[in-house]
C-alpha cells in the first residue's frame, strides 16, 4: 500500500499535538514506514517538550511592571509634558509681548530722532537750505500733500504767534518726511515734522523727550507720525506747548 507523505502542516501539527485522531493515525502510519523522517519528527517532539519544561520557570515578581503603575507613570509624564509645553508657550508670549512693547527702544531708535536731527540741520541756521521758502500756508499745504501725503494736516499757528518760514523734505527709512519751520519773530523757531509710519506701521504713543538741548513732542494721527521740535529752554517749552495745543 502506498501513502502520500503528510503535508508540512500536518507534521508540525502532529509534533504540537493539534491533530485529531484519524489524521494523527495517518501521520503515525507514514512515519512507521519512514524511520529516517520518524527520527527527525520524534526529535522535534522531544525538543518541544524540553523547551516547555525548561522555559516554564517562574521569573519572580516585578512590581515595577504592574500595568496600573505604568498607567500612572505615563499619566504623570503626560502632565509634566503639558506643563512644560505650557510654560514654554508662556515664556514665548511674555518674550513676544515684551519685545513688541520694547520695539523702538534702544540705540538709534529713539522716537522721532530724525525730527530732532532735521531741526538741528535747519532751524539752528534759521532756515538756510530749505526746499521751499514761503510764508503762505496754502502753498505749504499743497507742497506737503504732494510730497508726503494728502491727509497730512498742517497746523495753523498764527494764533500762537508763529508764522511758517518754509519747508524741506528728508529721506527716511520709512519714506519721505517733511519739516516745516515756524518762527515767532523773536528768534524762537519751532519745527513741525511729519513722516509716514513705514511698512512696519510703527505708530507712536503720545510722548516727549529731551536730548542734547532739544525738546521733541511727538504723536501719531491719521496714519502719520508727527513731531514738534524746539530748543529745550523755557521759551522753547512754552512755544512747543502753544504749537501742540494748536496742532493736535
Amino acid at each position, binding site marked *: 500500500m502506498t501513502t502520500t507523505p503528510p503535508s508540512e502542516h500536518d507534521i508540525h501539527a502532529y509534533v504540537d499535538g493539534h491533530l485529531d485522531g484519524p489524521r494523527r493515525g495517518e501521520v503515525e502510519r507514514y512515519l512507521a514506514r519512514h524511520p529516517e523522517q520518524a527520527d527527525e519528527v520524534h*526529535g522535534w517532539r522531544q*525538543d518541544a517538550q524540553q523547551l516547555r519544561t*525548561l522555559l516554564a520557570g517562574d521569573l519572580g515578581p516585578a512590581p515595577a*511592571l504592574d500595568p*496600573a503603575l505604568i498607567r500612572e507613570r505615563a499619566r504623570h509624564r503626560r502632565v509634566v509634558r503639558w506643563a512644560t509645553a505650557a510654560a514654554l508657550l508662556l515664556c514665548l508670549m511674555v518674550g513676544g509681548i515684551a519685545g513688541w512693547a520694547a520695539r523702538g527702544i534702544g540705540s538709534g531708535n529713539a522716537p522721532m530722532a530724525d525730527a530732532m536731527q532735521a531741526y538741528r540741520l535747519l532751524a539752528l541756521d534759521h532756515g538756510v537750505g530749505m526746499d521751499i521758502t514761503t510764508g503762505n500756508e496754502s502753498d505749504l499745504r499743497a507742497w506737503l500733500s504732494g510730497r508726503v501725503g494728502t491727509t497730512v494736516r498742517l497746523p495753523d499757528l498764527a494764533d500762537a504767534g508763529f508764522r511758517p518760514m518754509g519747508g524741506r523734505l528728508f529721506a527716511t527709512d520709512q519714506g519721505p518726511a517733511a519739516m516745516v519751520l515756524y518762527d515767532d519773530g523773536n528768534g524762537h523757531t519751532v519745527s513741525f515734522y511729519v513722516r509716514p509710519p513705514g511698512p512696519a506701521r510703527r505708530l507712536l504713543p503720545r510722548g516727549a523727550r529731551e536730548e542734547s538741548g532739544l525738546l521733541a513732542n511727538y504723536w501719531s494721527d491719521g496714519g502719520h507720525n508727527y513731531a514738534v521740535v524746539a530748543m529745550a529752554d523755557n521759551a522753547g517749552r512754552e512755544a512747543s506747548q502753544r504749537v501742540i495745543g494748536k496742532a493736535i
Partner: protein
Amino acid sequence: MLDPRIDEALRTMLPRLRRFALWLARDSNAADDLVQSTIERALSKWHTRRDDESLRGWLFAILYRLFLDGKRRASRYARLLGSLAHEEPTWPSAERVAMAHATLSAFAGLSVEQRSLLIWITVEGMSYQEVADILQVPIGTVMSRLSRARRTLRQLGDGDTQTPSLRLLK
C-alpha cells in the same frame, strides 16, 4: 472596558510577556524595559484593538516589533560609533544555571525569529494562524520557517561543534 479591567487583563499576561522578552533580549534588564514599553504601548493603543483579536497575540506582536525596532536602532548606533563591542548579557541566576542545558544553549543560539516561533508555538501553544498574523506572512511560510527552526535547534543541540559559526552567522 474600564481601566481597572484593562489593567487586570494585562496583569495576567505579564509572566508570558516577561518570559518571551527574556528569550528575545537574552538580558533581564533589557527584557523588563521591553515589557514596560509593551504595556505602555498597549495602554495607549488599547482603543485600536479589535475585540475578536486575541489579547495574547496582540501583545506578543507589539513586543516583537518593539524589540526589532530597538535592535535596528542599536545596530545603527553601533555602526555610527564604528564599534562592534559586544556586551555580555546579564542573565538572572536561575537562567544562568539553565543555560548549562544543551537544549537551552542551542535555543539561545537560534535567530530572533526562530526563538519567537518556537516560544509562540511550542511553549505558548498558539495556533499557526495567530503566528502568521503576528509575522504578517502566509501560513505556509510559517510552516517552512518552523521546519527550519526545528532542524537548526536539533543540529545545535546534537552536534554543538557548529555552534560558534552559526552564532556568528545569525
